[in-house]
């Protein structure tokens, strides 16, 4: 049975990288006794995949992973009880929000990712002045058709145009909201956007000099539907 799990990764867990998160979940699933399916072969591994890796230091409140479970045992367990079992095994900062059955033919989470919402949060609400200055910076930024950002790759530094990867960007009460490209086809890291803002904006460099949090709040597919749209609860 194909299962889609929605979860939060907050607090100290923002310092746990993607590969470590996978190992964390493999162990949590064993502890919670979720009837996960294993691959064939001499060293079987759990059938599990994540929608999109979350950058180091970034929190997530709408994260997704897909797993496959053994039908017979899964049918005896409701979504509710699986959530309870898993949450009993979570470290502080991790929480399971949804445990949904998705149709067998559903494209896996990783392949379907197209965009994600991010919020940049400042410790205190922005002053009126900061708010309007930031707004002006963003407006100016979005009016340009080309925004060049340096990207570190395995083969040295590469410059890419990030403007087409920004779908939405605006100022909110205590920070920024953005919907940006995510996934294997095109991927924008929020840090790249704030770097450009810092460099090009007149006021942003001041605002971004103090500490801020980055939170990924939702992940969408090409139809701009949340990834949990396709699932149903097991009763």
């Amino acid at each position, binding site marked *: 049975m194909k299962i889609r799990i929605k979860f939060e990764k907050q607090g100290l867990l923002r310092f746990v990288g993607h590969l*470590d998160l996978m190992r964390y979940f493999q162990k949590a699933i064993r502890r919670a006794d979720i009837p996960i399916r294993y691959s064939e072969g001499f060293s079987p591994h759990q059938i599990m995949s994540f929608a999109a890796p979350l950058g180091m230091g970034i929190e997530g409140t709408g994260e997704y992973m897909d797993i496959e479970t053994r039908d017979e045992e899964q049918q005896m367990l409701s979504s509710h009880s699986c959530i309870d079992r898993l949450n009993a095994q979570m470290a502080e900062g991790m929480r399971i929000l949804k445990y949904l059955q998705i149709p067998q033919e559903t494209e896996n989470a990783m392949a379907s990712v197209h965009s994600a919402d991010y919020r940049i949060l400042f410790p205190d609400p922005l002053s009126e002045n900061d708010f309007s200055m930031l707004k002006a910076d963003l407006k100016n930024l979005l009016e340009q058709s080309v925004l060049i950002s340096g990207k570190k790759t395995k083969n040295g530094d590469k410059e890419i145009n990030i403007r087409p990867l920004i779908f939405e960007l605006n100022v909110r009460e205590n920070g920024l909201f953005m919907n940006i490209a995510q996934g294997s086809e095109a991927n924008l890291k929020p840090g790249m956007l704030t770097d450009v803002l810092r460099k090009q904006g007149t006021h942003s460099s001041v605002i971004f000099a103090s500490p801020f949090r980055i939170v990924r709040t939702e992940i969408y597919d090409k139809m701009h539907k949340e990834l949990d749209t396709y699932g149903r609860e097991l009763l």
Partner: protein
Amino acid sequence: MINPALSDEILLGVDKPARYIGNEINMVKKDLSNIKIRFAMCFPDVYEIGMSHLGIQILYELFNQRPDVYCERVFSPWTDLDRIMRDKKIPLFSLETQEPIKNFDFLGITIQYEMCYTNILQILDLSGIALHSADREEKDPIVIGGGPCTYNPEPIAEFFDLFYIGEGEVSYDRLFDLYKDFREGGKSRRDFLTAASSLPGIYVPSLYESSCKKDGTLLSFRPKSPDIPSVVKRQVVSDMDSVSYIHKPLVPFIKVVQDRSALEIMRGCIRGCRFCQAGCVYRPLREHSVSYLKKYADEMLSATGNEEITLSSLSSSDYTGLKDLLDYLIGSAGKKKINISLPSLRIDAFSLDIMSRIQDVKKSSLTFAPEAGTQRLRDVINKGITEEDIMTGSLGAFRGGWNKVKLYFMLGLPTETEEDRTGIPELCEKITDVYYDIPKEERNGKLKITASSSFFIPKPFTPFQWVPMLTEKEYLDRAHFVKDTFRTMKNAKSMRYEYHDADVSILEGVFARGTREISRVIEKAYRKGALFDAWSDCFQPEIWNSAFSECETDPVLLVTRERDQEELLPWDFIDVGVTKEFLKKEWERAKEEKTTPNCRKSCQGCGAIKYGGGVCFENKD
């Protein structure tokens, strides 16, 4: 949520920030208002190494079973964070509460290998605790050392307030109770240390004085006053099933070296290899019962979700319940997709059968530790493995589908000759012959033999504790000779030979048998920037060379000097059970190339019987 001691900016700027945040699954949390004793348990190396160590996990759970004690953890910050903490004057903190170590009652440091000595100073320094016990303030934590290196604690004695000699399960309760009494009675640090010195297993270095001759030989060693014990007795658990093991092992966020549940099946070893300190100082062999281990295996796996379990001991094949235990583990492992790993197994038909059931034969390799190239030298070191054992084991392995063999050797063993060195490649060649004698169509892929040599280091409390080491040049000459001889073998293409760094071995040799004088060299090297000496990328031999010369100490002289049998040795004040008479007798037998039967075959009266348990009492009423 507890706020991290480090800012986001710092955490995101260092490698693997999860090393420093704690909060792992099964981390113990306590309400500080009920706590009388705060204990910081330290492994002075990076998190991934420290978290792989069984001993501190046992003690972590044991100490935390006491409602009045909160035991937390601290490890060496890696070099990137070390620099930042010094620059920004951030005090070293515990993982659990993220509070400064300086606020704790105890700082307990496990000392597993000599090359961590500068990291001990790093821990003290970053914590803001004076490096020398003598300079510490009333409120500073009591700094305790434990672990294998405490069998000669002298080179680091001045950095510790006390050492706990032996197995932690036995005397810590009494130490904690004593500490509480002293704190509640408003007594001084010095009063506490003096009282602690009369507890069994506790050594308080500041209460003893020693003097040395110019050549580094110990002239005298005695307590400063008559009411201080002149001998410190190693603490030993006589019935292993009477102590608790780990119910809820910590589950690190990052991948640590031992990313698996470790089940300690027994302590001690019956084999009596003459170079092996563990084989002497952990006597007698004491087993856990199979039923005890089954219970803990199940608990550990369900509390961690680990996908692998490993059996921990010095020689797993000597565990009498091995077959029963493995049948049980293999049975339950199949259901839960658990892998089983079995290090330190003797390669014979039984173990090959087991291994073929639990491992991917194609990927795994077989390991032999003959330690020496000829039977003569193996007899000298009492390594009870014969050429026939190796050949039969290899044939069985090749027939079973393995094609990778690893062999471990030592260079510079007492009485070693050129013939023994030539024997190393020759032994490997014989294994390749066994392989190529198998008809081609029955062989499995390409044969790969890897032989590696470490350099012999004489250790305290072994029959070789008196013997000289060689110079760095001599070690390297011998290694080069062996490497050259490998090239002349007809199947050289199937063999690979590697050897350890000789400069590190010399340093380990200095520390292993050193006196208190050596602490000056360690401190000097630390001040000059030596840190993480166990990491070959970090080890800087030139720092050590200048530290030795500034302290006017010749490391070569210290390691190459043969100790006289009547000489007072720095560790003579410790009673580990095994007697000096036994060690002397074993040294004589070694020179006569005579082997000594293992403890199960016949008792040699080594002295360990006084602990009242284990193999010394097997098959006796």
